[in-house]
């Protein structure tokens, strides 16, 4: 047995305080969106008497389970504005938070395999450019130059006819993003309270004035829900409904390999997306399991389907070994766009409905949710994304319009 003493534990990035009796603002959910909300409440609005309540451990839900892709090449104006704002914040955040969370702008290819794919893709490139989002259309030979390991030969089942390319897209190390936000929040006085599950809401008439938790009642000036797949459960406890269905979404990684994959590749048609983490794992994902579920796991045939697509597109992956698969619970809205805004309960705001694409929007979700909570009014970026759109019919129908995997 070694007699060498263990090194000192490095400095903690945040405190673990007990909850105070009340706060000016309480954010429910300590994932990326909750931490970013608290960060911008403090940074942009000077609110520091804030708590982030997390039922498990910090960033242990979808923030630890996503495939870390960041891009802003959405078709519709409202979405492009929201995601491009996020991308611009991502470009500044490593310096602002003084934390190198390995944000790597290695670009994203969205492959086209059919004539209809080609038409939709070129339309999206044009829409992106009009919205100030960097985008190019590449033919199959140009795609092969960007990503040489991709099978661009014409003799596969769904040949690559071309791709859209967003050079400023990329990946980041998701857990480090959460830690960066958490450290910055903590430094501004935000209480991050883990293992504190919200079980109910305290109301005074139509207004929320606090939350019941597994660590007692906590008073709140305003409350923001940033609970992704569990948003419906919280909304029900608060007495209203959300147009959300929770589904398992699976992802997987291979064992560690030397760098072979220089960019991010997404294919909506054969349905897989793949990148390579800095550490070396091939990171892959696809679509949700079809059924509603809160189990943080899905069915194997979904994995099998995406692996078939991945091996067809990347023959070099055929001998790779799977390291692990997992699932998260994603909150899918009817139009595949987020819901950020007021709820039927005064003082209670919601940020949900990001479905399978919330990680990339972490900064702008936090920015706009903080604005909405602090002022009571939506920010111009999230004004189109309120709950009322399901009554007015003004959907932001990325599901139907963009044909882009979220």
């Amino acid at each position, binding site marked *: 047995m070694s007699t060498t003493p263990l090194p000192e534990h490095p400095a903690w990035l945040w405190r673990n305080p007990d909850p105070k009796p009340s706060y000016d603002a309480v954010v429910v959910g300590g994932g990326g969106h909750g931490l970013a909300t608290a960060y911008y409440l403090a940074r942009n609005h000077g609110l520091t008497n804030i708590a982030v309540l997390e039922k498990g451990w910090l960033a242990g839900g979808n923030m630890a389970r996503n495939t870390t892709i960041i891009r802003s090449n959405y078709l519709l104006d409202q979405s492009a504005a929201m995601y491009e704002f996020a991308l611009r914040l991502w470009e500044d955040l490593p310096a602002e938070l003084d934390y190198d969370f390995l944000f790597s702008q290695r670009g994203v290819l969205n492959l086209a395999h059919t004539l209809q794919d080609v038409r939709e893709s070129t339309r999206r490139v044009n829409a992106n450019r009009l919205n100030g989002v960097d985008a190019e259309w590449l033919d199959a030979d140009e795609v092969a130059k960007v990503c040489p390991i991709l099978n661009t030969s014409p003799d596969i089942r769904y040949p690559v006819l071309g791709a859209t390319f967003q050079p400023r897209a990329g990946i980041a190390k998701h857990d480090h993003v959460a830690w960066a936000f958490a450290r910055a929040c903590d430094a501004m006085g935000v209480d991050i309270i883990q293992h504190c599950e919200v079980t109910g809401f305290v109301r005074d008439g139509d207004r929320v004035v606090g939350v019941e938790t597994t660590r007692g009642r906590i008073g709140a000036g305003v409350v923001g829900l940033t609970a992704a797949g569990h948003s419906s459960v919280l909304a029900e406890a608060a007495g209203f409904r959300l*147009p959300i269905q929770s589904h398992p979404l699976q992802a997987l990684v291979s064992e560690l390999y030397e760098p072979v994959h220089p960019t991010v590749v997404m294919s909506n048609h054969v349905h897989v997306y793949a990148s390579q983490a800095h550490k070396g794992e091939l990171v892959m994902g696809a679509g949700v399991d079809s059924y509603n579920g809160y*189990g943080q796991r899905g*069915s194997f045939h979904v994995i099998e389907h995406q692996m078939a697509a991945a091996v067809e597109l990347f023959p070099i992956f055929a001998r790779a070994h799977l390291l692990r698969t997992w699932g998260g619970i994603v909150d899918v809205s009817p139009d595949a766009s987020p819901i950020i805004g007021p709820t039927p309960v005064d003082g209670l705001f919601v940020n949900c409905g990001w479905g399978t694409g919330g990680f990339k929007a972490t900064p702008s979700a936090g920015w706009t949710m903080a604005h909405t909570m602090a002022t009571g009014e939506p920010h111009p970026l999230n004004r189109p994304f309120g709950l009322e759109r399901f009554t007015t019919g003004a959907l932001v129908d990325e599901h139907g319009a963009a044909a882009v995997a979220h």
Partner: protein
Amino acid sequence: MMLLTCPWCGPRNETEFHYGGQAHVAYPERPADLTDEEWAEFLFFRDNTRGPFAERWAHSVGCRRWFNAVRDTRTYEVLAVYRPGDPRPALGDAVPAPTPAP
């Protein structure tokens, strides 16, 4: 992978089925009389239960008939399957094993 029991064909692999979301959502009797809020509720709002949930499935590569199931969305355990038109079985009731068609 889930094993689902079609009320007509018996137990089959999940890949034979198509999911249909919440069961027992009736089309409005007088759609023209609905307010915008009521219409939004019918079109876009469904229960998102964490726990036993009554939902529709179609045996799309088998007999192609729809049926209902009560499934726990936390564990994915199928608690009951029943034919469309039948009421949702009360939880705790013993659900008779479905008989395959002769």
